[in-house]
């Protein structure tokens, strides 16, 4: 006989979004259970390279990104546990004339959205960041760019949540979602949960869980990879990203951490995942080209993790049909790790109030999941 549990709110997916939202809901006194298919926070939340960079984020999410950068600064204090955040200042480098043009065209838009970013010429780069290759022609510099420790951040939110009597249930993949009167039954192999509200924070699996909820959303997924080296001399005091978006580099305790969204092998539906060596080589060769001094570092390990993404790269958040206060989603944006503290909190506020639709503010309209819900797309599918 399966164990039965009754909760107010059940978060499906214990990644950073599930945990942030759960933490803020627990803080206002809600009874929250977070369930995860494996150990919590194992995929996108822990496998990303920990950049809290602003310059490499989508232009339509800049306002939130800046807010998040300030938030990260106080997060360890707020949660009472260290999240490993350091504000380092970041260079977004350009290595061709075309790249420089792209940087130049983006900077006014970024500045208009309140991002303190400036274009730095070659001369200044040689002086401020002598470790960068002579191939770097210019760079955008933003003093708010920083980095966090994804492992610590996930753990900090989980601990802070548990301190508020929140419960996390691991190794509980959802098998089925059923209506039970005004509640929702969440069935897992070991436990059957009866919840008033269900929040889909399942990352790469968010499409599948939304389909179980009755609204199959187009969630795309990818296997993100990152690499860490053995410790060596401290040479990179900043965050470095390339404006092509395929490189992030930072150094923590002497170790170089290299990311840039190069893809691994596998799929979330069988759960198989594997680092792809060809792509790791591509990632590292970009890193060595931009920062030649790291050639002497030895790679310690590379890893991968599943992440979800909406087709337009903007978050999917809000309430799902039939809009009766039971089904919510918070998933699948680009640069999600850095934005988690504020977007997760916003989501928690809406869930607490009950209705997203009535409370959604203008700056979040863009994120509203209703843009993918069938009522709208049904017309598009009608080609008869």
């Amino acid at each position, binding site marked *: 006989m399966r164990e039965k549990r009754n909760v107010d709110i059940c978060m499906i997916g214990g990644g950073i979004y599930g945990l942030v939202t759960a933490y803020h809901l627990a803080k206002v006194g809600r009874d929250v259970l977070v369930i995860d298919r494996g150990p919590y926070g194992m995929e996108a939340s822990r496998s990303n390279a920990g950049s809290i960079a602003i310059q490499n984020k989508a232009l339509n999410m800049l306002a939130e990104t800046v807010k998040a950068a300030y938030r990260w600064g106080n997060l360890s204090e707020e949660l009472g546990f260290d999240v490993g955040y350091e504000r380092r200042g970041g260079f977004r480098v350009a290595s061709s004339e075309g790249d420089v043009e792209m940087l130049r065209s983006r900077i006014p838009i970024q500045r208009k959205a309140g991002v303190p970013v400036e274009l730095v010429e070659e001369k200044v780069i040689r002086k401020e960041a002598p470790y960068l290759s002579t191939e770097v022609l210019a760079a955008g510099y933003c003093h708010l760019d920083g980095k966090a420790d994804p492992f610590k951040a996930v753990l900090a939110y989980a601990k802070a949540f548990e301190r508020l009597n929140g419960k996390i249930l691991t190794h509980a993949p959802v*098998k089925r979602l059923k209506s039970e009167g005004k509640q929702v039954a969440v069935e897992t192999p070991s436990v059957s949960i009866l919840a008033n509200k269900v929040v889909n924070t399942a990352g790469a699996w968010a499409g599948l869980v939304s389909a179980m909820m009755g609204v199959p959303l187009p969630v795309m997924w990818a296997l993100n990879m990152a690499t860490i080296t053995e410790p060596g001399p401290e040479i990179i005091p900043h965050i470095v990203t390339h404006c092509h978006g395929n490189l992030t580099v930072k150094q923590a305790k002497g170790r170089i951490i290299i990311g840039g969204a190069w893809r691994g092998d596998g*799929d979330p539906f069988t759960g198989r995942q594997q680092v792809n060596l060809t792509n790791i080589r591509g990632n590292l060769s970009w890193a060595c080209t931009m920062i030649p001094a790291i050639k002497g570092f030895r790679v310690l390990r590379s890893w991968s993790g599943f992440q979800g993404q909406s087709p337009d790269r903007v978050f999917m958040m809000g309430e799902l049909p039939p809009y009766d206060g039971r089904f919510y989603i918070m998933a699948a944006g680009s640069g999600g790790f850095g934005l988690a503290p504020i977007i997760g909190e916003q989501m928690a506020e809406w869930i607490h109030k009950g209705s997203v639709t009535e409370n959604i503010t203008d700056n979040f309209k863009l994120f509203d999941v209703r843009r993918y819900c069938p009522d709208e797309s049904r017309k598009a599918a009608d080609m008869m």
Partner: protein
Amino acid sequence: MSSHSDVIVVGAGLVGMFAAMELANQGIQVGLIDSGSPPELLDGLTAEILLFREHCPGGLEGMRVKSREILLGFIEKQTAGMRAESFAELQLVVAPADVEAAKTDADRRHRRGVPVEYLSEVELRKLDSGVSPEVMGALLYRDITAVDSEALYRALIKACESDRRISKCWGVKVLGINVKNGRAVGLRSSIGPLQAGQILLASGIGTMGVFASTGVQMPPMPEKTYRLVSQSIDSGPDRIVTEYILPGSFAYRSDAKEDSGFYVRLSACVRKGQQTSVGEAREFVVVDNNGSSDRAARDAISRHFAARMPGYEDLVFDNLISRFNCFIPDGLPIVGPAPNVEALFFALYQRDCRSMIGPALGNLAARTMIARKTLEGMEELSPERFPQSAPGGRKKSFGE
């Protein structure tokens, strides 16, 4: 199988086999691989009838018509044991709100020459007393082309195996795609590297685990489909009974989802002296889910069947068949070149109880590969409809 082919087709399903045959017809050396063996490919096809009709919600009429054409052309060339049948189909109108729409629909199609009529409650009961009194009416189509799934697969496998331009390799698991300078050059497989000028991924949900490292992103997801099959019946009207679906509505609307958690549809093909498949239940699950939902699925289908067709209560259910399908959230097939990676092509669609577009899709995939680009008018089916841009707003190059 030699380690180099002009084209490798991954997946020996309907799409893969029709694509391989079309490519071979154009004089191309094709390698056809599948993770299963022919007996495994035939597994789970008992009492499955594939419908080839052109009037279906969800559009794609051209593709449906073409599918039937290709199918009939294929059957004509077969020497033994393979034929297309003509069935009458009853589409039950269950929701009172759908009655007017169904009438208009029947009328419109009738005027276009489709042999269809709307049956009122009384006429329906006269035709089939086994249907529930709660059903509001029905659309009766007099001539639906249908074919036995198992016989078709058998014939297709035989046709592919006897074609010298197609080299077959069964039991091969594909692990990944090798990309060089933005171009797919071959596969990593359980029997070692396989090189090819072009690659077609037509292995349904199995495809999803193959292309991740190329950086291509797509939203299909697995759904598990259950069919409940009854024992042979002595007498029967030789008829297909399904439910009327509003034109333009998704196969999966929240109102099609039962409280049991399954999406259930009536899809019965009653044939004298034959086993009968009575309905489908679908659920979204991860692929490693073990058979623990079987009982619930069986209950959901039989309950649904009994509610729609109480007069058939003496049917004895024999067999629950399940398999994984590929579900595409926007409801359209994905066929065409992969975004960002040259020489890699996709042919995916979701199989449902509405109509079969596999043959036309395979054919279209083959023609797309020969043209090396999305064919005109097919843009809305192209994989390129899913945006692939990288964080910086630029396309990313992988595998360099």
